[in-house]
């Protein structure tokens, strides 16, 4: 059986805005060292590098949306470091300079990139954590729920 993954594709411009964001609520006060995630490279999209950005949250129209940029990952893997061939699913990690986050506040993780050109035929997609998200508190997934599944994101840090 083939290994199937799902992701949300990025078209040109979408890697430099906050359209796709993963809201996160930490259950404890934590200090963050790094996060791991997976990207799907479909065909051979052009991009320079990727970064992870963390935004504060604001309640707009009943939804929590990114508001202000708080932190940017200290590393920014280049395309050559991520993949040199066409097509692939790659695990990448992003380092942070030990920012601290309060329990029960919402933060948004946003995948960001520079020099990116994405089309429906050649793009980067941020992999969904479907069907088995690492943290499924309050989340019940069925086969129809890919759309609401979170992005695949693991955190490396410590409780304060």
């Amino acid at each position, binding site marked *: 059986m083939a290994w199937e993954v799902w992701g949300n594709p990025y078209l040109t411009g979408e890697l430099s805005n906050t359209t796709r964001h993963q809201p996160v609520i930490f259950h404890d006060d934590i200090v963050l060292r790094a996060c791991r995630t997976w990207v799907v490279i479909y065909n051979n999209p052009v991009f320079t590098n990727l970064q992870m950005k963390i935004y504060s949250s604001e*309640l707009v129209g009943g939804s929590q949306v990114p508001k202000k940029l*708080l932190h940017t990952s200290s590393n920014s893997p280049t395309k050559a470091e991520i993949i040199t061939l066409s097509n692939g699913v790659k695990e990448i990690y992003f380092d942070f300079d030990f920012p601290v986050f*309060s329990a029960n506040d919402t933060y948004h993780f946003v995948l960001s990139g520079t020099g990116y050109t994405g089309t429906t035929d050649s793009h980067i997609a941020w992999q969904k954590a479907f069907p088995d998200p690492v943290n499924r508190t309050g989340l019940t997934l069925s086969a129809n729920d890919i759309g609401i599944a979170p992005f695949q994101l693991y955190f490396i840090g410590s409780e304060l």
Partner: protein
Amino acid sequence: MSCTRFFHQSFIDTDLVSSSFVSSQQAAFPVSNIYNQQRRSKVWRSQGFWEVLSGANTIVFQETTGVDLTATIPAGEYTSSTSFFAALKTAFEAVGASTYTVVSDTSTKKVKVTCNGVGGGGIFQLRWSHAASASIAAILGYDTSTDDTGALAYLSDVLKIHTSEWLMWDLGLSGNPRALALIGPRNTPLKISPSAIIRILGNETNNWTAPSYEQTLTYNDAILQQMKEAGFHTESLRYWRLQIIDASNPLGFVEFGSVYLGEYYSPTRGSPQFPFQSEYIDRSTTVFSEGGQTFSDILPKSERFSLEWFGLTVTEKEEIDEIFTKFGVSIPMFMSFDSEANFSSSVNYFVRYVKFDKEPVVSLTSPNNYTMRMEFREEL
């Protein structure tokens, strides 16, 4: 819910806050005084914080009739009037041939620019009506409708002692305070002008161009305060800043004795019962001469409050236990006795800086129903 509130958890306690910053401070009145809980009469005084922005940092002046010179003050933040005035002097002398002096006039506190008239054609004109001088004219308090001519020294038209002052706190973790209080020494008004603009700002980052939260405090001559049951902002914010714009303060500085930003506790079921007793304290001593005349040694006045709590639940009683354990009879704290202004002219009136005057007395009236008697003495 009781309208009596204990300000028991300060986010900006020096043991808790990640970092705190101040715009300026006088050496004899450092900002550490404002965090020293024991003495509200030991105060912080500002020394003049001047912020000069790039592109708004020039003064056009003349030493020779018809020849404009442009002094450029380096853009940046100056943390004392002395350093700002030194930068002005250097800027004048960098393009002019005369020697310049910039000081705060001792009697009026206004800015005074003096030229010795040695360089150029021997004159000194400040061209405030020139567009390039407008921003600095506003900062220094000079009228831009006319140029200053015909003399070698010019006093500003309006008093300006700073561009703003501020206290800034990085809480480390984001927090959403519910109470703010600012006081000076008791028995004297706060040393800020009624026209002062005092704001509490909150933001996710240490950038104050467009803060997420901004609230202007209502002026009061005894205490400035703000309380909000649901928290100041809709979200928790990491950076908080108290901004004071009081450029025309005739004292030449702004002053505060103690500041609080944090949580408050107010029991839900239990509440103090009427009558709310208070007692004035005047420690002045008056002696009578043989002829019957009186001579008084005038000392500061204070006030004592008695509260009789009824109906406290176990949780509420134990919360008050913790508050007493934390403060005891030795550490002062802010309290609001009438947070809804039900029996006072304003909420500010009964926000007081108090100590427990004696240990509270507790009695268990019935299960989950405590009575507590406590007395507070307002601190000087």
